[in-house]
């Protein structure tokens, strides 16, 4: 025995050491590669923005002046105007998130867990506004709901009623934002509700808890991560939303942080440095929110998907089946039907000035498809459509892959560097898209890789900007799949890669598909990030619409918006088909 123990270490030490070193190397490689990738994608642009917050000149290639570092830009952050803008942002963000969670949560609950009438249709209702980019929605609502020339009030006056609709105020801004961010809440909460193990509810039920108590004590706590995830996501997205604040809030004189930043960027001369300083204050706020959410979730586990088969129980709504349907339809009307109809009316009307809505239907020549013909005939619009589709599919695919790799490392491994990976992934959420866009422009102008002026830089920008959405989407799905399933495969001799490929990824197929779809939609809809990156050959549909809107060509903007929504619709149907056939 003694000789054996004496011999063994001598014989084994070198391989053990080598093994440990190899293992360490292996452990570090993956996180290091991912971190380097994220640093290039996200940290470099952010660094340039931070730099410009402390600099006296906006950084540009060939103009990196670090000698004039100053805190002057931050003086602006504490001025009365920006404090007011910050308070407005907070009010708008909190109000819009609460309303969006209410709408999305309600729709998710009735479609996932009740026997509401037209359940399948209401599910679509929850998703459909995703096809309407928020600025197209805002465009439509500004046409529909303004005080003097809004279609709603013109129609009311046609009927001899007083026009009472006025969207151009802080409440209107909150409502429009909530309408178009509710689908985020819907998607996340619906996912959690349908994956939930009914055993837990049934156990409570069997032990005599009444329905309300089961809901409060079991169901709601189980969807907490999804709910909080949605809340943080929507809060941050609404706070940093630029186009809606600009279109609705701009007309109302309600200044928010993003419009304030935009204004600083757009004043003559450009005050990009102060804008960057304001942006950094915004970043700080958002980081605190994300950190709080992590703390709240860290204390508990929320595993709800296990190896056992399950089918969530549906609750009988009884007399509430119809009211629930009507509430859902009301949302459908406000978020999709009325806006689309108003865009169509404006695009088809023969003049940009609309004196009567109902009267127009009596006149034979009140409508013309000229605006649509203009758009369909335009080579710019055709090329922009192709560009948008190519860029979005590529960005969604690469984005989902990267998000999966990062989320897996963060959630499932004990590899070093997990925390930084998560923080860097979530960082773009805290950078207003308009500032991130500038940072990305500077980065890829300086970078020796010649991608500027190609569609590749758009793909890079979208992957960077949408990393948080991709990461959160994949991570919340991973969090719900019991890790024992994958570990069992490894125990039975499968390699980790094989276990991921054959166990975890298939289990996550729904989660990954919906992340891919989410990224696809976000890319198709994105306006602010590519605003600084496009060149004449790489214009996207969103840019073309914004250009027309910016140049006051509202009818063509409306026509393009509608065709744009059709492209998004077609794309989403195609990808759902594709996703569905994959599942079979």
């Amino acid at each position, binding site marked *: 025995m003694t000789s054996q123990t004496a011999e063994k270490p001598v014989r084994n030490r070198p391989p053990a050491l080598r093994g440990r070193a190899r293992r360490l190397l292996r452990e570090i490689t993956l996180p290091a590669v991912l971190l380097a990738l994220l640093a290039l994608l996200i940290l470099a642009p952010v660094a340039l923005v931070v730099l410009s917050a402390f600099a006296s000149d906006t950084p540009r*290639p060939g103009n990196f002046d670090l000698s004039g570092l100053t805190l002057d830009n931050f003086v602006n952050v504490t001025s009365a105007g920006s404090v007011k803008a910050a308070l407005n942002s907070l009010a708008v963000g909190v109000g819009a998130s609460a309303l969006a969670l209410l709408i999305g949560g309600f729709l998710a609950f009735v479609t996932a867990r009740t026997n509401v009438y037209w359940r399948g249709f209401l599910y679509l209702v929850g998703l459909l506004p995703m096809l309407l980019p928020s600025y197209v929605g805002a465009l439509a609502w500004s046409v529909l709901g303004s005080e003097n020339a809004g279609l709603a009030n013109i129609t009311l006056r046609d009927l001899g009623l007083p026009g009472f609709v006025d969207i151009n105020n802080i409440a209107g801004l909150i409502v429009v934002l909530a309408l178009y961010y509710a689908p985020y809440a819907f998607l996340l909460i619906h996912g959690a509700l349908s994956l939930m193990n009914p055993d837990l509810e049934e156990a409570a039920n069997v032990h005599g808890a009444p329905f309300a108590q089961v809901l409060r004590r079991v169901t709601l706590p189980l969807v907490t991560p999804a709910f909080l995830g949605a809340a943080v996501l929507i809060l941050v997205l609404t706070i940093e939303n630029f186009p809606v604040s600009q279109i609705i809030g701009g007309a109302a004189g309600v200044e928010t942080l993003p419009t304030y930043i935009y204004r600083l960027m757009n004043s003559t001369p450009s005050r990009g440095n102060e804008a960057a300083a304001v942006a950094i204050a915004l970043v700080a706020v958002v980081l605190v929110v994300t950190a709080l959410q992590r703390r709240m979730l860290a204390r508990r586990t929320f595993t709800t998907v296990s190896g056992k088969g399950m089918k969530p129980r549906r609750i009988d709504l009884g007399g509430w089946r119809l009211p629930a349907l009507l509430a859902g339809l009301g949302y459908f009307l406000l978020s999709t039907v009325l806006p689309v109809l108003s865009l169509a009316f404006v695009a088809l009307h023969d003049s940009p*000035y609309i004196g009567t809505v109902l009267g127009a239907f009596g006149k034979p020549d009140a409508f013309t498809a000229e605006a649509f013909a203009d758009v369909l005939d335009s080579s710019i619009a055709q090329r922009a459509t192709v560009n948008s589709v190519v860029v979005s599919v590529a960005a969604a695919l690469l984005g989902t892959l990267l998000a999966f790799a990062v989320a897996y490392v963060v959630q499932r491994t004990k590899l070093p560097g997990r925390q930084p990976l998560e923080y860097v992934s979530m960082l773009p959420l805290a950078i207003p898209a308009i500032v991130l866009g500038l940072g990305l422009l500077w980065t890829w102008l300086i970078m020796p890789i010649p991608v500027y002026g190609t569609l590749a830089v758009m793909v890079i920008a979208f992957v960077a900007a949408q990393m948080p959405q991709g990461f959160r989407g994949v991570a919340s799905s991973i969090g719900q799949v019991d890790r024992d399933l994958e570990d069992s495969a490894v125990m039975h001799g499968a390699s980790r890669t094989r276990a991921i490929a054959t166990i975890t990824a298939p289990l996550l197929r729904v989660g990954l598909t919906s992340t891919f779809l989410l990224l696809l939609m976000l890319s198709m809809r994105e306006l602010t990030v590519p605003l600084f990156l496009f060149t004449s050959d790489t214009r996207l549909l969103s840019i073309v619409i914004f250009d027309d809107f910016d140049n006051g060509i509202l009818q063509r903007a409306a026509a393009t918006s509608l065709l744009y929504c059709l492209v998004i619709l077609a794309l989403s149907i195609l990808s759902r088909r594709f996703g569905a056939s994959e599942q079979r």
Partner: protein
Amino acid sequence: MKAGRTDRKSLATAVAAVLALAGCGGSGGGASEAAKLEVGGELIADEQLFSAAKEEGSLVFYTGGSEHSEKAVTDAFTEATGIEVETIRLAPNKLSERVLSEVGAKKLGADVIRISGEDIIVALAKAGSFQKAPLQGAVKTAAGDAIEDDGLYFSSFDRVYSFAFNNAVVPKGQEPKNWADLLDPKWRGKLGIVQVGAGGSTAALTRFQFDKVGDDYLKKFAANKPRIFDSSAGQTDALTRGEVSVATMPVATGVGAIADGAPLTIAVPEEGAAGYPFYVGVGAQAPSPNAAKVFASWLLSKDAQKIAVQQGDYPVRADVGTPKVGDTTFPAADSGWLYRIDAETALEHVEEDAKRWRQIFGYTG
């Protein structure tokens, strides 16, 4: 509202007629062998330059001018030369940011740049955005002192900043005619104005209002609770739809909107109106340098200057007339009606004026 469409057609017809009358060099698609480009007897490009330009076939045009007015110009140029123009339009401030970044990275994609704002053009020139593009004798003489900074860039026309009202909303007999009329309390909540920092245009308007209309004019104007817009394009749209009844308005923007069927009437106020130049330069790293030089020179030709006049802009040439809007011809350039300050004065006042403006309107940013 058929009238709107007819207007657009008639504008196009007028442009075509002008081109025909001017006998635009006979250098259109028909001339296959090398020919020079002449407009109204003035040499725009010699054989060598013009054939090199046609070889290049197209050019990229970065502009801060309005969509509608630039389209009229580029269409006419393509018609005359067969050279295609790809237009990228951005608000002057965004455009300058873009150009500065691209120049720094030596990736400036613009062949020709047109932009307003003295501070902007000076900054662009300083950053090396332009290359010298020698103009042919006759054009150069006609343009006179419009050529600045040793030929790096030149002024192509003066745009006029006035105001306009929605004639479908404002009842007959109530129309505002002069700047002073806008102070009437009946316009309370129905006025629009673009924020001072929007660009060279608003800077010029503000200087004009302080200096010429009255030092306290804007204070009284602000008391009427106007809606403040970010850009004139957005404001024009709101005015067209009747969200506001009266708004300040760059004339060419209004002309474009009217051609598209907007029920607008542009005012020619007795107190005058502000004029501000749009500068043109050839990009330092122009991908199609020959086409760029031809286009830049052509912008000073009689044909191009006449198009500017039709859009309501004051030309830099003295031999193409004064702009006319609707039935009203604007007073002659030297009549004192058009308030025009030199670049130096503009640069001197731009910051102080903006600060005052923001205080008056309680506007942050």
